[in-house]
Each structure stands twice: as structure tokens, then as C-alpha cells.
């Protein structure tokens, strides 16, 4: 079974984020694998293994030919990667990104496409479903358990009330929530092997996409302003000397919660 995992390379979330001159997130520095995507990579490796073989291919769109995050996922065990990097993609929105990813995924011809429910940096949360629509695939989002048997996938999908058992024929796009599997740490051998794994780098033209459909122009939206939010006043600080719980009780009493 061949699995494609959509992975995003993002600015390190631990560092303070900043906006560029176009008021979009500054992605000019080093990018790393979005933590959210490690679950999809792990799930793909486990599912390919359970199916008795097959390849896990990463698909990613990133500026400046960035591969650091891809190397992390390759070190976990993915076989190869397709990277789309092109100046024409600067300022792309979720739909523009989906057009690019869908075109790249089509080349890989997978049985299953996995993605996170949303990225950590942009968190639009619609890209995987847009990809599915563009490919004509079904989609099952917010999966907390995924099993493939033959040409069918069975998913436990998070709902407001609990979860649904959902079944879909392959090929299908499935988005996985965090915590569904425990992502493995790349081994030293894995890290060494990742250095020589193939990363195919493509442009918008390679994918046959009209540049007007992607990038800032294709996004058909404008950020009109970015301003500081009204700051919340910080309140009373108590250092616990063994009786801080009494202050909390008092506070809750004032609010009539107790």
C-alpha cells in the first residue's frame, strides 16, 4: 500500500513568531517539521507495515527549497519526498496550497493520503479536505483510530458527542488528530539514511499549474490591518507557602462558584 503524507515545514513554534511586510507569517528562517505531522508520518509507516509493504511518500510545499523538516520525517522511515518550492507560491492561501499538493499527490498515485487536522502555524484547517475535493477522493477528518483492510479504511472519527465509526473505500484522504499514535524518534541509522533518500523538487510549472491560481494573487484576499489586542490586566500573584489553596477558595466564593 502506498501512502502519501502531507507534511508542513514551519518556523519553530518555540521562537516568537513575526510577520513580514505583507503581514503574513515570516517563513524566511530555518523551518522544521510541524509536530502535528509526526502523527501522520508514524501512522503511515505503521499502516504500510501492517499491509505487508508499500512506500510512504512525503509531499510538502515550502519556500527556499527547505528540506530540514522533510529530513526529519525521512529519518523516521518515509521512503522519499516531493517538495514543491517556487517563488510564485509566496502568499498562497489554503486553497492555493491544496491545488499544489493535489497536483503533486496525483503524480504519486497513492492508496491513502494522510495529513494533520491543521497546521500549527497557519491552522486554517481546510487544506486536506480541499485536496480531497480536487482529487475527487472521499475524506475522513479528525481520525483517532485508522485501520486499513483490503481496499477499505475504517476510521474512528471524533465528534461533539463522542466518535463515529466511518468506512471509506481507498483512495481516501484521512486527517489524524494528535495522540493517535506515538511518533517514533528517528534512530541514528535512520538519520544517516535520510540524507541519501530522494527528494524530488518541483516548481509550479512542473505541475502544470497556472501561477495566477496560486500565490498572493490566487488567494483573492487581503490582510487589511494587524493591531495589538487589548491587553488583559494581569492580576494578583500569590507564592504558595502551603496555604495558597485558601486564597483560591476565597476567590471562587467571591464569584459564587462555591
Amino acid at each position: 500500500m502506498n501512502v502519501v503524507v502531507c507534511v508542513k515545514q514551519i518556523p519553530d513554534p518555540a521562537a516568537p513568531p513575526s510577520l513580514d511586510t505583507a503581514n503574513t507569517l515570516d517563513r524566511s528562517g530555518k523551518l522544521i517539521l510541524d509536530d502535528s505531522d509526526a502523527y501522520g508520518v508514524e501512522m503511515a509507516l505503521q499502516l504500510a507495515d501492517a499491509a505487508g509493504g508499500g512506500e510512504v511518500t512525503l509531499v510538502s510545499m515550502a519556500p527556499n527549497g527547505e528540506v530540514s523538516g522533510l529530513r526529519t520525517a525521512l529519518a523516521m522511515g518515509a521512503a522519499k519526498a516531493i517538495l514543491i518550492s517556487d517563488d510564485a507560491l509566496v502568499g498562497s492561501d489554503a486553497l492555493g496550497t491544496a491545488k499544489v499538493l493535489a497536483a503533486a499527490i496525483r503524480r504519486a498515485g497513492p492508496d491513502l493520503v494522510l495529513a494533520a487536522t491543521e497546521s500549527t502555524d497557519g491552522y486554517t484547517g481546510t487544506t486536506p479536505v480541499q485536496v480531497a475535493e480536487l482529487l475527487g477522493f472521499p475524506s475522513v477528518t479528525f481520525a483517532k483510530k485508522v485501520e486499513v483492510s483490503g481496499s477499505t479504511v475504517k476510521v474512528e472519527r471524533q465528534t461533539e458527542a463522542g466518535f463515529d465509526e466511518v468506512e471509506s473505500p481507498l483512495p481516501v484522504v484521512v486527517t489524524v488528530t494528535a495522540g493517535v499514535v506515538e511518533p517514533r524518534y528517528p534512530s541514528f541509522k535512520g538519520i544517516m539514511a535520510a540524507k541519501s533518500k530522494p527528494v524530488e523538487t518541483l516548481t509550479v510549472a512542473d505541475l502544470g499549474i497556472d501561477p495566477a491560481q496560486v500565490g498572493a494573487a490566487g488567494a483573492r484576499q487581503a490582510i487589511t490591518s494587524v493591531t495589538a489586542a487589548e491587553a488583559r490586566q494581569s492580576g494578583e500573584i500569590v507564592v504558595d507557602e502551603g496555604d495558597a489553596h485558601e486564597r483560591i477558595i476565597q476567590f471562587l466564593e467571591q464569584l459564587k462558584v462555591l
Partner: protein
Amino acid sequence: MAIEKIWVLAESADGKPTTTTLELLTAARSLAGTVEAVGWGEVASCAATLGEYGATTLHDVGDLAGSLPGVPVAAAMAQAIRAGGAPDAVLIPATYDGRDVAGRLSARLDRPVLTNVVGLTAADGGLETEHAIFGGAQVAKARFTGEGPGLFVIRAKSFAAEASGGGAAAVSPLDVPDTGTSGGATVLARHAEERSGPKLDEAEVVVSGGRGLGEKDQYAMIEELAGLLEGAPGASRAIVDAGWVPYAYQVGQTGKTVKPTVYLACGISGATQHLVGMKGSKNIVAINKDQDAPIFSVADLGVVGDVHKVVPKLIEAIKARG
């Protein structure tokens, strides 16, 4: 482009529209002369309430025969939009199914979508959105520049729901075209998880735990404290990622937005990811051993201390009150 007609994606549960649906109808009413709802499943039984909040028509996709809503509902909406009578904007709740409909509709119509919207105002004949970014430290405003309809995915609790006293919405069926291979996902069974207290996003008190708890088993004290306060237990992304609690517990950018009377953050440092989901709480109490933790910048009462000491004492003290 003046805003004349808005569609609201109406979700229902147990025969009633969800609170977010009513919030969106209220907002739509203030922005457009005509407000219509689009729903599926048992939504027709909600026509009276939807009307009361401003919808004059309910476009009913009807029974989905087990399909997940995303594909058939978006396909039906897209077909109706192409056939004429398109709205200027579609407001969609940021829920599991809402996001599916938004993504499908966006790709089908080739229209961009603005998500994580927390405010919506009329500006220059169109709509301007507000988004809380960087943990709510900054507000970004945005608008569409191309052809409509504009698709907006809106977070819960962005608007207050207020009835307008309108009559029941007229129910009008909406046909689903053939969706081919994309419509293949079907629901085999639905499972409701046992929940003893109030829902996370409706609770007056939310008690959340984070990585500061140290290990999975320690989350039990968060649940116990939430129970004693008749509140709901929540979690930071860190411990959801670690698999300690299910995704449904997550408060934050990814996850639920909560605005309870009291939010108790236990062992949560206050990453921007978390702050954006709880900063709107009326009162915030934080317990964390690191006095420099960002959570203290939003806390009305901050306790610099060990959750493993403070929380058990708090539990005992509340129990002692009987």
C-alpha cells in the same frame, strides 16, 4: 459588493440548533437583509428556532443516508449557488462537520475561505473579518478581494446569540447532485461517550491540566476538581499530543474556545496556542511553579506553586465544605 443575503450553515443536535448556529444567525441578521439557513438530517425540526433567530428560509439537504455531511452538503450548496440566488456570504461554524463543508465548498466553487474568524463587520460594501493571532496578542483583519460568495468559518462564541422573534423558517428542499467517488465515506455507527458534567464549551467552570502535571495518571485530579466545581475538565495541547487525554478535551487554537466564568489552569505554561482558546474567560486562575510562565500574564489570580501540592489541598478543602 453590498451584502444582501447571507447563508448560515445550521447544525443541530438532539433536535435543537447548536448554540454556534444561533450565534451566526444573530451576526448574519446584523449584516444582511436576508438570512437563510442550510442544514441536513433532522434540521427541519429546528425551523421554528432558526426562524426565531432570523432565518427566513431553511434549505434542507435532508437525510444523508449515512454519508458524512461534508461532500453532499457542499455539493448541494454549490449546485444551488451556480443555479442562481447565490448568497453574498456563507457563515460556517468551526466544527468537525462545518470545516468539512467549508473545505469541500471552497474547492468546488473555487473560492477562498477565511477561517478562525472571531469577528465580522460590514466595511466598504463587503465584510471584514477579525482573527486573533499570536495567542490573541494581536488582531488581524482581512477581506476577500475576488468574486463571491465569501466563505467564512467562524469560531464558537464570537457573537452573542439573540432571538429576533421571527416566524418559523420556510423549509425548502435542496437537492444533492451525484458526487461520484468523493462521496464514499459512510458512517457505520455513532458512539456517544459518557460525560458526567457539562460540555467543555458550555461549562461555567473549566479546570484544565497541562504538562506540569508530570504524568498521565495525575490528570485524575483535574477531573476530580472539575467534578467538585460542577465544571468540565480541559487540557492543553501538550498533553493531548502526548496521548494523556482525547482531542475532545483540548482548549486552544487547535481545539475548543471556552469563555467560562472561571478558568482554572493547572500546570499549564500558557503557550500562545493555549491562550487564544481561553483568554476570553471572565476570570482566570493559574497554578504553575514557574513564576515567569506566560499564563500569569492573563491570570486574575496566579499561584506560583506546585500543582501536586496545591490542587490536592484545594480538592480536600472543597470536600470539607460538604
